[in-house]
């Protein structure tokens, strides 16, 4: 009852705040038990998620989401604030484990291996599924140490020379090398916001993950830094599978192969990006991308 009420209120409120937006004539909500429309599943899946439900205490944040992420694709997750897209992303490397009272139900597999099985080593999983956060969070160490952090704890380099090479390659892949090669031993926190975020990406790819999760990686950056990161995502997609959560629909349109639209904890539509942005199948997706609420 309350849930329906909030849902019904939301678009009205948005329409009130921004006068330009057209008030919607019907309440925007996903019907109970309505299936996701579009192409959620693929043959060459890297990760498969089936019937995922996520709870924070008593509150359910994700309702019955099933989706595949294909090998080497860039999948964008869009949706209004609080729709659960970040929560969903964080279930993929079990970062939700650190949140008190968070419970995940359903099956998430990577290469056929269940991520939530008791025998799985979370530490190893997170080395295989890297993550870049919304706010750049370089460690308060030198640029070199930031990138070397992962390889060091996972023992990826036997000698100093190996480590140097990993650091250099990662920074090159993150297209940061040219800017920082002269000052590798200065603190990473002294870089600009965009450079810090690329440093975080370099740090994530230094352990050669298979999947990289990006949680609104550009929301704290200016347009030029954003453009650089987007360019970088495109390059990285040749070697990595990338799942990116974004608030910017333009960004989703620019960088992703497929786009998933979340609404109030439900996965409404998954389709190739051009299709989502040119002829969305679901009326909610259409309403969102045409800016009728958000």
């Amino acid at each position, binding site marked *: 009852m309350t849930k329906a009420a909030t849902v019904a209120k939301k678009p009205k409120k948005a329409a009130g705040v921004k006068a330009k937006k057209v008030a919607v004539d019907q309440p925007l909500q996903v019907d109970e038990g309505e299936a996701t429309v579009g192409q959620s599943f693929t043959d060459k899946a890297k990760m498969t998620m089936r019937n995922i439900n996520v709870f924070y205490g008593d509150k359910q944040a994700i309702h019955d989401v099933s989706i595949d992420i294909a090998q080497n694709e860039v999948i964008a997750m869009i949706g209004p604030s609080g729709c659960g897209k970040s929560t969903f992303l964080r279930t993929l*490397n079990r970062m939700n484990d650190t949140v008190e009272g968070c419970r995940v139900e359903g099956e998430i597999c990577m290469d056929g291996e269940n991520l939530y099985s008791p025998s799985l080593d979370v530490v190893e999983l*997170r080395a295989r599924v890297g993550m870049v956060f919304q706010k750049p969070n370089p460690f308060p160490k030198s640029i070199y140490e930031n990138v070397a952090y992962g390889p060091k*704890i996972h023992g990826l380099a036997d000698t100093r020379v190996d480590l140097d090479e990993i650091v250099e390659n990662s920074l090159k892949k993150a297209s940061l090398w040219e800017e920082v090669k002269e000052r590798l031993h200065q603190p990473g926190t002294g870089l600009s916001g965009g450079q810090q975020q690329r440093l975080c990406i370099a*740090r994530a790819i230094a352990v050669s993950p298979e999947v990289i999760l990006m949680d609104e990686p550009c929301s704290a950056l200016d347009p030029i830094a954003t453009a650089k990161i987007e360019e970088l995502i495109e390059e990285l997609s040749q070697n990595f599978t990338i799942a990116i959560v974004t608030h910017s629909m333009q960004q989703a349109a620019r960088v992703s192969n497929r786009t998933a639209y979340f609404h109030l904890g439900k996965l409404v539509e998954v389709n190739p990006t051009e299709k989502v942005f040119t002829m969305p199948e679901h009326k909610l997706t259409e309403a969102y991308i045409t800016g009728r609420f958000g």
Partner: protein
Amino acid sequence: MQATNILILILALGIFAFYIGRGRSLAMAKPLGGIRNLHSLPSYYGAYTALWCALPSTILLCLWMIFDEPLINSLVMGSISDQLADDSLATYNLQLNKISNIAEGILSSRGQSPELLIAADYMSRLQTMSQWSLTALMLCLTMAGLFLGSSKIDPAFRARPVVEKVMQNLLLACACLAIFTTLGIVLSVLFESLQFFRSVPAHEFIFGLEWSPQTAIREDQVGSSGSFGAVPLFVGTLLVSAVAMVVAVPIGLMSAIYLAEYASKSVRAVAKPTLEVLAGIPTVVYGFFAALTVAPFIRDLGTSFGLSVSSESALAAGGVMGIMIIPFISSLADDVITAVPQSMRDGSLAMGATHSETVRRVIIPAALPGIVGGIMLAVSRAIGETMIVVMAAGMAAKLTANPLESVTTVTVQIVTLLTGDQEFDSPKTLAAFALGLMLFTVTLLLNIFALHIVKKYREQYE
């Protein structure tokens, strides 16, 4: 009237002035159509008047209290004849004391020389006069201030910036007071120490290996000449402090890490206050615990291993002291560890680091300044601690690095030097100041060193 009474009167008048000023501004605002037509709020006009009323007189009162006594004394001493007021400072002070005691009625006036009685009478007259003139002056000044302040009130008058400025200067004055007090203590310790170094050469004090401060009070007394080598004391202090830190740093730090990183909310809610209770136990309780329980236990334990342990040992005192300072370290370290942003933890965990790797490689380095700050506080506490050492480590100044033997510390020696009968200018008493100066210097150097370490190794987030 007494100075305190005058001060209370000034404050009362100040409060009165506040309401006068406020009322006056309100009365002015009424015909203009409300307080919005005043430049400042009525309370600022009130504060302005109160400041005019109370501040000048308070300052004058302080100055009066500082200069009142020396002035009267010199007047009185100037009045009595030269043969009584001898050249030497000691006689001068003696005579002055006598006069003021007679004036206050502490000393009976019978049997005193008439000249002294006249002087005493003169003194008490001067004092009475001073009191009355002070009272009158204060009353005049506060009233004048009140009228001046309230006459300045006008809707266009900018009272707010004036009050702001005065408040700023008051804050500055308070800060200066703290600084000058510190400076005063340091200088007084320094001058007394210099006096000590006149009788005992500084190099002998700083590098001497023997401490036995007993000196003969009278010429005919059989007593040792005294030797003032401070090295055994400082070695003893360092030994006891080192034992304490060996106990306190690991336990404090690790419990802080547990509380901040691993403990559930309910455990934390119970464990943290419980740990902090340790800091609230009086040191004398720790002292007898150390002397009566821990020291004999260590001695017996040592004996069973075939070691000879004295019944008062640096180990017992240091160990108990370590327990005492655990909360200093754990509480401060806990606060700084909790203050490290969650994004650092997330970043590290998302790289596939375990929780303990995250703590070791990211959180501790980021929290280092606070942790070192806590340790420094604990070290200062350990060096300055007296009671536990008096009771459990002994009094004998032995030069040893063996924690199983009894040692003594600088603070304990300062206590023993200043208790008991002693002349104020004997080297024995003055040695306390020299020790204090040394202790102060050592602690200062330690702090500077720690600051340097922090600067070098800190990993600053944001």
